[in-house]
């Protein structure tokens, strides 16, 4: 059987900012979606998966690369695609019925046809009886059903889902996933393909036929895995768990050359983003691992056991690896002897170890050198910003400096005066001059 190619991205690169302060959201991505496919885009926050979805829907036009829909270059908004949003994006001042009707009205469908069609769709997603309710009266799950009904109203060929279940509670999300699969597998809807952005590995394995894995810095596609499981899938089956393990292994095992791995100082090439973590959480994770026999654990099981979402856990693991507290291999995380020492150490001891480790990071090495250069060992926040702005997106800069200051304060390397917005070298933590 020959399949029809619905959508194709060819070497798409999307960047923001001006010439010397460019930030690359996605680099050189090529991707194809065929009719009948359910593709999941999986990756950590900031890997550009939502950007990719918006490029595919035609909301953003990439400066480089080509977007083809049914073989023709896409110009402007893709009329055959529609999006279901994470935040539902319903108009709060319109009733449930009006929210669905408006999608039809916008395409010039007269009310006489739009109204029965909206009612029919609401019936299909099980919102019969809630037509005149306002979104705020509904639970999250029901609101997202309105989101689905609105998307279906325009008979999209390509249905784009932007983390549609991640704002819902566990039970509603599960129910809605099941209902989506019913509609999709039964062929009740004219949709030819579904593209879903998610950061939940299990969700991707549960729903998709193909999982496209992305990495950040810069956003790129690193793997494209086929999921050969039959629907309905059972989460506890061995085949399912093996697939989840494989995806975890692929995602956590993305190693880069040493320089990329450690990052560089501002001006010395691409900076590595410091993972946004709570240092107490990191300590907690290391302690937990220290209690495991052999000091290692399967990352997927760990997520389950600690009740952490995978995004959060992966950030902690990234930090542990960056600081040399743990190593990652084939979906497993193993504590290093240093990590063990950290887990066993007292509060003071931990601060010392942490301090020694972050001094090795080029960002901190640069920062300390800069601080030592100036009289009084101080830098203003705005001066830091200027340096960082050469490397990061403007909205990322404040965040990154915040993390650096937080880590430095914990390690007692830095002090920060919030009133004056000045970063000091913490002289108490340094040998006396």
């Amino acid at each position, binding site marked *: 059987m020959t399949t029809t190619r619905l959508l194709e991205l060819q070497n798409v690169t999307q960047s923001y900012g001006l010439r010397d302060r460019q930030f690359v959201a996605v680099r050189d991505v090529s991707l194809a979606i065929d009719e009948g496919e359910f593709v999941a885009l999986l990756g950590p926050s900031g890997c550009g998966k939502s950007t990719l979805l*918006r490029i595919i*829907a*035609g*909301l*953003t*036009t990439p400066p480089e690369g080509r977007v083809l829909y049914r073989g023709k270059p896409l110009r*402007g*908004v893709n*009329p055959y*695609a*529609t*999006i279901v*949003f*994470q*935040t539902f*994006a319903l*108009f*709060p*001042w*319109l009733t449930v019925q009006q929210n669905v009707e*408006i*999608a039809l*009205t*916008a*395409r010039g469908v007269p009310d006489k046809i739009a109204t029965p069609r909206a009612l029919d769709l609401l019936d299909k997603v099980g919102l019969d009886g809630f037509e005149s309710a*306002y979104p*705020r009266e509904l639970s999250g799950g029901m609101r997202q059903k309105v989101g689905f009904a*609105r998307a279906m109203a*325009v008979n999209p060929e390509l249905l784009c889902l932007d983390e549609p279940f991640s704002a819902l509670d566990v039970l509603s999300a599960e129910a809605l996933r099941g209902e989506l699969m019913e509609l999709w597998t039964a062929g009740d809807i004219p949709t030819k393909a579904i593209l879903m952005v998610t950061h939940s590995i299990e969700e991707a394995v549960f729903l998709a036929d193909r999982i496209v894995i992305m990495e950040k810095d810069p956003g790129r596609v690193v793997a494209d895995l086929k999921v050969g499981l039959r629907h309905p899938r059972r989460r506890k089956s061995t085949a399912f768990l093996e697939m989840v393990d494989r995806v975890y292994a692929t995602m956590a095992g993305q190693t880069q050359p040493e320089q990329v791995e450690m990052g560089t100082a501002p001006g010395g090439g691409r900076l590595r983003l410091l993972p946004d973590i709570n240092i107490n959480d990191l300590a907690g994770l290391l302690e937990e691992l220290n209690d495991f026999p052999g000091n290692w654990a399967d990352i997927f099981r760990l997520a389950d056991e600690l009740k952490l979402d995978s995004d959060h856990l992966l950030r902690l693991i990234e930090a542990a690896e960056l600081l040399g507290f743990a190593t990652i291999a084939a979906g497993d995380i193993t504590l290093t002897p240093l990590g063990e020492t950290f887990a066993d150490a007292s509060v003071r001891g931990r601060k010392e170890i942490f301090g020694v480790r972050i001094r090795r990071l080029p960002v901190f090495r640069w920062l300390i050198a800069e601080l030592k250069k100036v009289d009084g060992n101080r830098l203003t926040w705005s001066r830091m910003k200027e340096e960082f702005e050469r490397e990061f997106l403007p909205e990322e800069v404040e965040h990154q400096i915040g993390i650096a200051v937080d880590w430095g304060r914990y390690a007692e390397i830095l002090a920060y005066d919030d*009133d004056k917005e000045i970063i000091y070298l913490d002289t108490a933590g340094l040998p006396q001059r």
Partner: protein
Amino acid sequence: MNRIIRLFSSAVPRQRPWTWGDLVALLSVTVLVYAGTRLAFYAPAVIRGPEISLSPDVLPLYAGLSFTRMLIAYGMSLIFSLWYGNVALGNQRAEQILIPLLDVLQSVPILSFLPVVLLGLSAFLSQNTAAELASIVLIFTSQTWNLTFAWYQSQKTMPRELREVAAIFQFNAWLRFKVLDLPFATIGLVWNSIMSWAGGWFFLMAAEIFTVGKKDFRLPGLGAYLNEAANRGDGNALSLGLITLIAMIIFLDQVLWRPLLAWSDRFKLETLGSVPAPNSWFYDAWRKSRVVADWVRAGAGLALAPLARIIGLLASRPAETVDAEPARGWKTTVFFIVGGAILGWGSYLAIAMLARVSLQEWSQIGLGLGATALRVLAAIIVALLWTVPVGVAIGMNPRLSAWLQPVAQVAASIPATALFPVLLLGLLTAPGGLNLTAVLLMLMGTQWYLLFNVIAGASAIPHELEHTAKVLRLNKWQRWRVLTLPALFPYIITGLITAGGGAWNASIVAEYTVFGGKVHSVLGIGSAIAEATASGHYPVLLAATLSMIIAVVLINRFAWRPLYRLAEVRFRMD
């Protein structure tokens, strides 16, 4: 309570560095004032005002006239605001000038324009038309900036997803305006409309009573009625006029603004739960009587649909893809070049006219600025001294606030300029005379902003902190120093910014007045402007007006903004 906070805090943009947009803004103001002054040379030297009747029979007519002026100005403001905001939103280069301009214009003391506008218009219009138009221009200028800011801000803060929905479902401009842009802005527009009307009354009253030397610019209306009554010492007419004014303001509040607020609650993005929805008896009754409501709605629909369509055409922006690059058409370039040339030429002429002002006149203007600044300061200090303790007492005591709030609201709703004739009648002969009256007028214009902000701040102090203060056995002074004053600081600053602007405005009418056929004046920038208007000394008028505008803008920038920022960063409760 929430209503009060919203009502009495101006929309101050966040800290913004000086840009060349500020320079353009100041130059534009200069050129505009210059143009008015230039025209003033052709204005007649003597302007005879209208006969103002004190018969109670004319009150409905006068009230109607005053109301109509407000309504016309408000309608113009609304349309202008949507248009101005859209130009800024649609063109990045225009945005860089329009937003600083907006910021400067909203801190300019509007009343300082009044003489220039009146004289400029009198040069080529019949005196009555000129005065009518000037009052509308004045009210319009006072109302439009915060409305514009509300519209611009709402469109800027709209969630990205909602804009994406409009794009992906291919809404056209009209549908997008109707379903997304306007509903999203509704709450902000309603709140700011209420603010605009409150301010509008102040300026309308000032415009209706404006008289300098042999130039009587009065307009038949409630303000002139009050003024005439005070002039003739007719206590009866004075009370009748005040009652009519207050009744009209309360009536509008009850059957227009409150219902609008209650209705606009549906446009909230998300209900946070804790904030109670505004309520209105009129709105409730309206909704319950379906028959009347349907009937009126049908009628309003017929009448308003074409109007809405027109506003929509003016106000809706073309549908866009979300990340559209800014258009850099040649039209904008031509516009900028022409605009730049006009500004340059106008500024040159303005400077040439300013050169005709003698050194002695300049020093007189400088002294006047100083004197007025001292009066403003005095008014603010007196206001602080009484509003802080009283506000805290009311804010921390729900029972007290339950019955004092409505009283204070009614008191606050009376525009200070309407009470000015009353003050004159009572105080002009007292020791201190006009000096005292001027400070009192400023005080009346400022104290309410402060009082309501202090009440809001006091009632927002978390109970946990109050309890902690008790548990720690802090004495009264320590409690003020550690808890109450820091907690109030942001509210006081917000109140002061609005209050300061009001006080400067008041100086125009307060420092120079014609009362009982005699001219009374004290040293000040307001009297400098009024005297220059009276004597026809127009270069001095230009110099004084510009000095006042620039002084107030600078004070805003260098005194209030840093304090506001400090309040936001250091003393925020979150």
